[in-house]
C-alpha cells in the first residue's frame, strides 16, 4: 500500500531542507558514557522490585513443574493459563490452556532483560495478548540474557528486530485518580520474572 501525501511529502522535505541548510549543522555527540551495574542480576532484581515487579530466583534446572508449584502456592485461584507460542514445552505449567482474555495468568519467555532500568524485553513473536491481557504475567528469563545497560540490549535486539517489542518494567500503574497509585489498570497488575540461573547470584535471592 502506498502512503497518502498529496505532494505534502516533497513540500515538507523541501521546507525542512531549506531550514536546515540555513543553519550550522550540529555534530552527533556519540554514545552516552556510563558503565552500568556490575552484578547485573542483582541490579535487575532490585530495580524491577522497586517498580513493583516480583522476582523469583530460579535454578537453571527449573521447569514447568516448579512454576506450577509456585502458582498453587501463590495464586491457588488461577486454574487456567495462556502461554506464549514460543514458550518451550518444558517451561509450561501443567494447567489447562485458555485464551489470553480468560486466563488467570499469562506465561511468556523474555528475549532478555536490562539491569539499569529493571526491564524485561518481550518480542511480539511471543504473542502480545498473552503479555497484556491476563491479570498476572509470568516471564521466564535466563540470567545470562540480562544486559547491564539498555543501550546494549537495544543494539543487540536491533540485529533482528521483530515487528514490535515491549519493555515491561513492573506492573501496570496509574495515579490519574486523586493521585493515588492503582495497579493493574489495563495491563497485568502483577508481573513476575522467573530468572533462571539467578540462584548463582545470592544478592538476587534476598
Amino acid at each position: 500500500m502506498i502512503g497518502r501525501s498529496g505532494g505534502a511529502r516533497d513540500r515538507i522535505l523541501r521546507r525542512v531542507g531549506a531550514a536546515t541548510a540555513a543553519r550550522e549543522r550540529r555534530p552527533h555527540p556519540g554514545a552516552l558514557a556510563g558503565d552500568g551495574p556490575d552484578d547485573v542480576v542483582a541490579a535487575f532484581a532490585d530495580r524491577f522490585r522497586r517498580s513493583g515487579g516480583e522476582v523469583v530466583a530460579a535454578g537453571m534446572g527449573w521447569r514447568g513443574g516448579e512454576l506450577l508449584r509456585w502458582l498453587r502456592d501463590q495464586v491457588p485461584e488461577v486454574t487456567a493459563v495462556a502461554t506464549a507460542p514460543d514458550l518451550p514445552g518444558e517451561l509450561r505449567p501443567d494447567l489447562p490452556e485458555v485464551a489470553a482474555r480468560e486466563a488467570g495468568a499469562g506465561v511468556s519467555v523474555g528475549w532478555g532483560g536490562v539491569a539499569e532500568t529493571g526491564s524485561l524485553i518481550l518480542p511480539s513473536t511471543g504473542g502480545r495478548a498473552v503479555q497484556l491481557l491476563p491479570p498476572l504475567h509470568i516471564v521466564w528469563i535466563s540470567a545470562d540474557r540480562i544486559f547491564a545497560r539498555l543501550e546494549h540490549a537495544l543494539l543487540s535486539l536491533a540485529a533482528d528486530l521483530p515487528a514490535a517489542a515491549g519493555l515491561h518494567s513492573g506492573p501496570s500503574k496509574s495515579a490519574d485518580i486523586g493521585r493515588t497509585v492503582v495497579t493493574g489498570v489495563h495491563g497485568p497488575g502483577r508481573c513476575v520474572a522467573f530468572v533462571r540461573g539467578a540462584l548463582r547470584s545470592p544478592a538476587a535471592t534476598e
Partner: protein
Amino acid sequence: MRIEIGDYGARARQVIREDPQVREAVTGATLAFDAKRRRSYDEIDSDAWRRWAEAVKSHALTHLDRYLAEAEARLIENGAVVHWAADAGEARQIVMELAAENGVRRVVKGKSMVTEEIDLNPALEGAGIEIFETDLGEYILQLLDEPPSHILGPAIHRTLEQVRELFAERLETPPDGNPDTLARAARKVLRDAFLSAEMGITGGNFLVAETGTVALIENEGNIRLTTSLPRIHVAIVGIEKLLPRMSDLAGFLQLTSRAATGQPIGCFVSLIQGPAARPGDDGPKEVHVVLVDNGRTDVLAHEHAWEALRCVRCGACLNVCPVYRQTGGHAYGWVYSGPIGSVLDPGLLGLREAMPLPFASSLCGACFDACPVRIPIPELLLEWRREAQEEGLTPWRERAALTTLAQMATRPGLYRLAGRIGSRLGGSALGRALPMLGDWARERALPKPSERSFRELWREGIE
C-alpha cells in the same frame, strides 16, 4: 482543540477566583512530580545526560531531511505505510480515509498531544465513529468533555471527589468508591473497547531513523494494548520526533522518564517497527505512520525558536513553573501549555495568534534547569517579547499586568510588600494585578525559585 489563547489573562483570573480547587490540585500534583524528577536526576549525572540529549536532538534537527527520509525508507521496508501531512486538515483527512476504507466503527486511542493538536476526535465522531480514550486520565476528561490540562497527567486538575461523582453518575460506581474501585470500573469499559475496536490510534514519543522504530512510553499498558489488539494501528508523529539511532533511543527513553515521572523508565515501552509478520505474532495487520508538519517547519526555520523542537513533552517545565501552578493548562487556551507552550505556540501558530503567552512568565529560569534537552525557554520568551514589541502586538498595560502577576507567582513575598503599599498603586500594573494576588499569596506550598536567577543564567551565556 480550539485556539483561545487571546483571553489568557481573563481565563487565568477566572480559574483562580471561581475554581480554587484547580489551583490546589495542580499545585499538589506538580510539586509531587517535581520532587520525583529532582530525586531521579540526582541518581544520574544529569548535567552530562542533559547536554548529551541536547546535542543529539540538535544534531537530528539540523539533519532532519536526511533522517526523515531514512525513517521512511526503513518503515516501508518493515511493511508499514508512511503518510505525510502538511497541516492538521491533511492529517485528519488521512485518518478519516483509512477509517472509511476499513469500515472502522470503533477506535481506541492512547494519550497523544498531537491528536489534540490536529483536532482528530471531533472529526472521527462526526463520521459516526466511536472513540475511546484509554489513558485513565484522558478517559476521565472524555467523560467530562474537557481538554487535557497537563502533558503527562491530563486530569491532574480534577480531584478524587470530582472523579467519584463523575463515575457514580456515568459508570454507576458507589458514591464513596476508592480509586481502586473507580479504576476497575473504567478498566471494564475499556477492556471491552480494546477487544472490539478495529483501529488503535497513538502518537509517538520518538521515531528512530536507523530502524524505523516508533517508540512510546507509558505506565498503564493502554498504549501497548492500543498498538497490539486492533487490526490497524495508526501512529501520528510530529516530524521533530526523529532520533538518529537505536543507541540514542536508549538514552532518551530513560532521560524522558526521569524528567517526566522520576522513574528510571516508564512501566511499559512499545517499540514498533511495522505490522505483524512472523509466526506467533498476534499484532496488527496494518501499521500506518502519519508524519505531521502543521507549523513545525516554520519553527525549524525560525532563527531562535527551532530549539523548542527538541522538546520531548515530559512536562518537567510545567511542574516547576510557579505561573502554571496557579491555573493548570486550560487557561493557556491551547494544547501546549506552561513554559513550553509559551515558546512553542508562537512558533506553531504565529506570534499574533499566541499572544500574550510570552508575557505569562517571570523568567525565573526554573524551566531551563529542569528541561532534559536544555531548551533555553527564558531566552526564547524574551525573543518572542522582543518580536511582539517590534510588531506592536500587545498594549503595554496588559503586558505589564501579566508580567507583574508572573513575578508575584514566583516570589509571593513581593505580594506582602505590595499589600503594604497597595492603596497607593491606583491604576498601575501592580494595582490591576492585585485582585488575583490575594489568592496566589495564600498558596500553601510556596514555589522555590531557581537557585540561579535568569539574569545570572543569561550572563553565563546559556546557548
